[in-house]
């Protein structure tokens, strides 16, 4: 324990720690990971040149500086993000002061903790696998601290191999722990999800152009399983948020105004039952296929027919609901609703107002005006994900000069146009499209499928969906976002996309079986083994039983080769012959060699004297004639012994008196 840590183990520890910090890279501030990388690399380099240990007057101020920097950036050291940043920094500092195997072990143990905390940010399958690989590295680093390695030629390979083997051997135990460790009903401290920074996702505020980040994000947003056939692609509108209020630049949903009543929805058939598994959004909205009819457990149906969860979705969430694609929504509008659906900020977009008022002055009815607007888009607009920036009068700029944009631009401009013409209208954001996974039998909707469209209210017919994007780029609606987004990045190539989509079956399985494995499923699992109404005690009991069984099996394995010594085949055969002879009354004495035994046996058992002589002479030749008897001859001898039958004798002949 007192010895200095060798260079090779030190470097392995440094690599393992660096990999651990790299697992946090996504949310680390650049100053930290650059400082950590420089510090570790510099220490490895200095140690190669036999530098002295890093002095305390460097280490302690560095730790203080780290603490100060974290507090300066986050205001606290508690919580998921500042905590992990602090952890990564301390880990790098620990590598600096690692001089002895003891230090290295502490560093690796702490690295395990920091590694685990990386999973609090990303739970995807690929990331978990990557983190497990780093775990193998950590175990290998621990193995490298052993004093006398078994293999000196390829030590690293051996250590990695051993780390992987240990991990593999631990799998049954880990699985038992994972399945049976009781989950907490409520968190012990903090409220998970509260301290997180927003993920990319739909927000309750929409500015034309703001969705760009989301539209190039290929990560899954949610997966939908339909009880029966899925709706056709043009009907796959998943509404999430309804935006009413426009301030000239952005659309919002002002909570203060509230909704005076739940909009009455008349369901015209075509009901669809389905289950959605939503990836965490850290927000409260739940997407639902156009017009949800009932609210799932833990959520309520908003006045404008959106689903709002009681808690923010910080963990993957699964919910089941029913929707319809043919409906009449709110055939009568109240005065407040009407006012709100027509409100436009004064002093913005004069040309748009002029255009709409011109249409109205022509005497067109509402339906014609809608058609006019869609015609306008269809004639001279282009769908693109990289549109020019818009100025103060965003609708004017878009309609009369740039004419290039994507769903947000169209939805926003369209609603402004409708309101200017006196038609109640609102913006709806959500998702449209998705990729039907044939093998998994589910619809995969990615963040890139985020969409914005409009709803206009017509007397008698209520709120009707109008998607101006469809007028510009029908492919976006028919074929999905991937077909419409023509940016030819490498990741957009068709086969890669198809591969990714297929692979999503595994991701979906991961989300459903591992990430979503909660207390409820745990109970369900135990119930299927016949335990009625299992509680946490039962789970612990089951865990103890499985743990005991696994330990027992492992013990049997560890003792295995001692219980059964690997004996020489020739010796075994000879011992068998001895037993046969003993049963026949000629037991070998301790002072007797094979030939002495033969002489005695021949006289005692004359019936088998011939075969016995041959056998014993054979044995003598094999045992004493060669250093290593030929295996086939040993086998043949074994066979002969097995076939040898000694006649049964009743009594042992009198032992000759040696004294005489």
């Amino acid at each position, binding site marked *: 324990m007192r010895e200095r840590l060798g260079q090779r183990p030190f470097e392995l520890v440094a690599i393992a720690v660096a990999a651990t910090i790299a697992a946090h890279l996504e949310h680390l501030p650049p100053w930290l990971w650059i400082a950590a990388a420089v510090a570790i690399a510099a220490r490895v380099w200095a140690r190669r040149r036999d530098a002295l240990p890093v002095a305390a007057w460097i280490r302690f101020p560095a730790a203080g500086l780290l603490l100060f920097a974290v507090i300066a950036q986050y205001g606290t050291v508690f919580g998921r993000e500042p905590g992990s940043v602090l952890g990564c920094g301390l880990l790098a500092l620990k590598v600096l002061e690692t001089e002895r195997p003891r230090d290295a072990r502490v560093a690796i143990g702490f690295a395990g903790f920091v590694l685990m905390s990386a999973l609090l940010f990303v739970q995807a399958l690929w990331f978990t696998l990557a983190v497990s690989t780093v775990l193998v590295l950590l175990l290998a680093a621990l193995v490298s601290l052993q*004093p006398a390695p078994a293999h000196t030629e390829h030590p690293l390979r051996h250590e990695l191999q051993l780390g992987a083997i240990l991990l593999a051997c*631990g799998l049954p*135990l880990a699985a038992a722990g994972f399945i049976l460790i009781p989950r*907490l009903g409520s968190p012990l401290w903090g409220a998970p999800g509260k301290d997180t920074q927003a993920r990319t996702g739909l927000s309750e505020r929409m500015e034309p152009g703001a969705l760009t980040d989301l539209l190039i994000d290929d990560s899954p947003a949610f997966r939908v399983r339909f009880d029966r056939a899925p709706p056709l692609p043009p009907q796959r509108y998943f509404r999430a948020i309804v935006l009413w209020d426009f301030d000239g630049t952005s659309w919002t949903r002002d909570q203060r105004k509230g909704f005076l009543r739940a909009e009455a929805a008349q369901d015209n058939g075509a009901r669809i039952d389905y289950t959605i598994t939503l990836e965490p959004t850290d927000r409260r909205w739940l997407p639902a296929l156009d017009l949800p009819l009932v609210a799932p457990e833990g959520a309520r149906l908003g006045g404008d027919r959106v689903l709002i969860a009681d808690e923010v979705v910080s963990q993957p969430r699964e919910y089941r609901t029913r929707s319809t694609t043919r409906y009449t929504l709110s055939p009568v509008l109240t005065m407040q609703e009407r006012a709100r659906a027509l409100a436009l900020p004064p002093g913005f977009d004069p040309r748009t107002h002029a255009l709409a008022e011109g249409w109205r002055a022509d005497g067109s009815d509402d339906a014609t005006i809608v058609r006019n607007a869609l015609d306008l888009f269809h004639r001279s607009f282009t769908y693109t994900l990289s549109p020019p920036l818009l100025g103060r009068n965003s609708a004017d700029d878009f309609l009369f000069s740039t004419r290039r944009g994507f769903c947000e631009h169209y939805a926003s401009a369209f609603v402004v146009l409708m309101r200017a013409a006196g038609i109640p209208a609102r913006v709806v954001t959500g998702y449209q499209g998705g990729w039907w996974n044939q093998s998994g039998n589910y619809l995969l909707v990615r963040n890139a499928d985020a969409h914005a469209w409009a709803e206009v209210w017509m007397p008698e017919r209520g709120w009707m969906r109008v998607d101006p994007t469809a007028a510009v780029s029908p492919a976006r609606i028919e074929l999905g976002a991937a077909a419409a987004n023509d940016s030819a990045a490498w990741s957009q190539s068709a086969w890669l996309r198809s591969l990714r989509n297929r692979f999503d079956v595994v991701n979906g399985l991961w989300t459903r079986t591992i990430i979503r494995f909660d207390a409820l499923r745990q109970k369900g699992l135990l119930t299927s083994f016949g335990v009625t109404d299992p509680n946490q005690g039962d789970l612990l009991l089951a865990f103890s039983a499985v743990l005991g069984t696994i330990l027992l099996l492992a013990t049997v*394995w560890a*003792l295995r080769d001692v219980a059964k010594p*690997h004996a020489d085949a020739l010796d075994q055969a000879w011992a068998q012959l001895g037993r046969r002879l003993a049963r026949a009354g000629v037991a070998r004495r301790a002072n007797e060699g094979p030939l002495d035994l033969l002489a005695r046996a021949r006289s005692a058992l004359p019936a088998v004297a011939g075969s016995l002589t041959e056998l014993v002479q054979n044995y003598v030749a094999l045992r004493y004639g060669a250093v290593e008897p030929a295996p086939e001859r040993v086998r043949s001898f074994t066979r002969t012994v097995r076939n040898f039958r000694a006649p049964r004798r009743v009594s042992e002949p009198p032992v000759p008196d040696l004294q005489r």
Partner: protein
Amino acid sequence: MAATIADLRARTLAYAERRLPALTRLRKAEPLPIRLDRRRIYVLPTGFGVSFALLLFVMLLGALNYGNNPALLLTCLFGAAGGASLFGGFRAMNGLSLTQLNAGECHAGAPLTLRLRFAPTARTRPSLRLRRDDAETAFVLPAGVESDVALTIATTHRGWLRPGRLRVSTDYPLGLFRIWSWLNPDTDFLVYPAIESPAPALPGGQGRENELARAGAGEEHAGLRDYRATDPPRLIAWKASARHDTLLVHDAEHRSDDALVLDYSALTGFEHEARIRRLTAWVLAADAAQRSYLLHIPGAIIGPGVGTAQRHACLRALALLPHAHA
């Protein structure tokens, strides 16, 4: 402070082992071979192992608190790999068999190198440690061959030395568990007395010169006899043998008249151990000069003689002389 604690700990342990042999697993010395099996292999977590368990508990709480299943899975994997390492370590010890224990020649005060021979094992056993008091060595036993392990221990007194309990231990592969067992072979080693240094010249230094002078005077065959199979090669008189076409050796018996007498009682004015140290130094000096000598100590006369056997006989007798106060 640390020394006091260590001393206290050693004394407590010694007391505990005296009074509670069953609990402290104090084993009587036993004959070789000693084979380690599950009945005598002990396992406890190391300090790192205990902190590892605490760490796992904290990780578990964190994962459960955030309801994060992948983190929980990782925690379980980490813990399970640690648990699995216990069995790997046990297998490194289980079935280990000590077959021989040797030591070289050693004088009191000099380090004694014990050589432990282990029987061939079916699998490689890495990272074992052997420890006696403060002496520790790490070794690996490759599969399928007999291996020798050297452990150097300090000696202080002449006479019989019993190495006593040797601890074989390992914390292979992750350092989480210490797996250990005791080897207590009933083997004693003789530690020869310390050598006085610097030692004065041999007494009666002129004896050798007389002999040489006589040999030079023409008695060519004086002190030579025919070679016998048991004669050590260094006694062979090569020049004379070449002249006579037969192997001739220096005849120690013949020279016994001129043998050097190393007499304990002649060394007056010294205390007991100092006399022994000086005699030891002289025995070695006489042996190095290939002179015949006779050792006269209380109760025994050894020799006269020359060669390894004589040297060992003398050193042994000196080593086993009763101690002064005894």
